[in-house]
């Protein structure tokens, strides 16, 4: 069957899922879609831009808190509040990214982590606005979207459109240039690309879509907590993308599917063991796969000739 055929089949399967599946599984699918979007947005940086952020929870959390605050503090309905998710996340990504893209590799990762911790701490400490540790409760969608099936369709639509947008971006001239920056920043400069600015734009796009994921999750969850910005949350898209494969656009989606199903299976039986399980998978995946995840680990998908020394 051609690729379009598979895609069509998948769409049909997802569309009729509510007829066949009990609410619990719809919720699981909803979560998979949200995590899948988060990881795909993250992978725009990692897989296509060669930038590994250890602080993407910040943009997820900004995307969750911004509409939640509008709903709770300004009384806006969800559909009006939700657009604030990508906006707030993009603003945060622009502010932090401006500094982060000045650094590279380990320092890039560490500065992104530092900014995420700032976001976490602000949310945690600013009790008057954010509720601090108690979070913001009762952040529900309007009645029409409240049932698992309705919110499932809503999530599917928003995630589907977001993925389409990300796919367009990856295949666009911007995406080509981003790949060239990943491959060889110095060469990229000499074909006229302003490397930092390009990285920053990618960072903001990635942050914005992470924010969409956060916003969707806020209303799915009915509440938001400072944990959304904690550093362990930042590793979620990383692990998901690694599991699924950072080289392909759809890898993180597959990773999200595997990750969530596994999480469900394991934590249903032994909730306590889930972190142990996840940690072990991360370790095994990193140690055992010979070249790690192509590209990131300095490995290459094919044998290359070393550049001859002149």
């Amino acid at each position, binding site marked *: 069957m051609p690729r379009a055929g598979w895609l069509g089949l998948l769409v049909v399967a997802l569309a009729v899922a509510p007829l066949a599946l009990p609410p619990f599984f719809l919720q699981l699918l909803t979560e998979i879609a949200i995590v899948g979007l988060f990881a795909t947005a993250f992978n725009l940086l990692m897989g296509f831009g060669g930038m590994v952020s250890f602080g993407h929870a910040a943009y997820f959390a900004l995307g969750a808190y911004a509409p939640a605050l509008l709903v709770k503090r300004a009384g806006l309905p969800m559909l009006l509040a939700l657009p604030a998710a990508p906006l707030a996340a993009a603003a945060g990504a622009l502010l932090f990214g401006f500094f982060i893209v000045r650094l590279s590799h380990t320092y890039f990762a560490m500065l992104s982590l530092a900014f995420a911790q700032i976001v976490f701490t602000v949310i945690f400490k600013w009790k008057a606005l954010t509720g601090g540790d108690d979070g913001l409760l009762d952040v529900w969608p309007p009645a029409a979207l409240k049932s698992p099936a309705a919110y499932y369709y809503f999530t599917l639509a928003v995630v589907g459109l977001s993925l389409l947008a990300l796919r367009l971006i990856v*295949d666009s001239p911007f995406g080509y240039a981003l790949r060239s920056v990943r491959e060889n920043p*110095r060469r990229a400069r000499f074909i006229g*690309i302003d490397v930092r600015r390009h990285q920053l734009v990618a960072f903001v796009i990635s942050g914005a879509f992470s924010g969409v994921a956060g916003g969707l999750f806020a209303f799915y969850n009915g509440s938001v907590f400072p944990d959304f910005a904690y550093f362990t949350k930042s590793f979620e898209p990383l692990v998901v993308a690694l599991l699924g494969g950072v080289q392909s656009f759809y890898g993180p989606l597959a990773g999200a599917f595997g990750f969530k199903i596994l999480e469900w299976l394991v934590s249903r039986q032994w909730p306590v063991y889930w972190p142990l399980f996840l940690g072990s998978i991360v370790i095994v995946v990193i140690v055992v796969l010979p070249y790690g995840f192509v590209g990131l680990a300095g490995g290459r998908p094919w044998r290359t000739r070393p550049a001859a020394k002149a």
Partner: protein
Amino acid sequence: MADPSSRQGLILAILGLRKHFGGVQAVNGVDLSVEPGDLRAIIGPNGAGKTTLFNLISGDLRHDTGRIYFGGEEVSGLPPHRLCRRGLGRTFQITSIFRRLSALENVQTAFLSHHRRHYNILLPARRLYRDEALALLERVGLREQAGKPSGILAHGDQRRLELAIALAGAPRLLLLDEPTAGMAPRERHEIMALVARIAGDTGLTVVFTEHDMDVVFAVARRITVLHQGTVLAEGAPAEVRANGDVQRVYLGQPVTA
């Protein structure tokens, strides 16, 4: 020899350029002027400062003192991507390409950027400038390799590809740092003949470094000899060959052609 201080009509003029690394004075007061359409070889023994000079001209390194004029305007301190937009192209001594992109994508990306489409996020890029890129690959002899990941191409083909990437930016001035490094003599002549042809066709100015004197004397219009960071001699090939200082610097590898 044109005077670099009268920048009029020069595509590249350099005045009193210096750069040091720790205690090493890599470029030590270089004056240089290049007229449009020139095919200039910069020669000199290993460590003479050729690559450093290229890095300074192209904005990859910041010089300590001196001035650089490109097309009559001062460009000292401009970053590489700006210089590229003004019409400066270059290749590196150690091949620098986008290794996990196909040869075609390498050149396409260069075209996209040259046409300032690189912030466009709406169009599919696959078909953009495809014909132009294929034509350019054809010109450098890589048409057959277009679809292959550039990282697996043979060394010589990778160097050709880098040339194509640089040419895609339609530069006015092209800096080639040992474009034939690591190639067999026959291929060297072939590549440089190609460069000369392209330069002739398009009016492009080329400045290149090269260790193979056969190649240098076969294609260069003028030659500048660099030694320990300073210009030792400059002139037409015949003048340079006759120059006693040059003979001395190249003792052990006599300048014969």
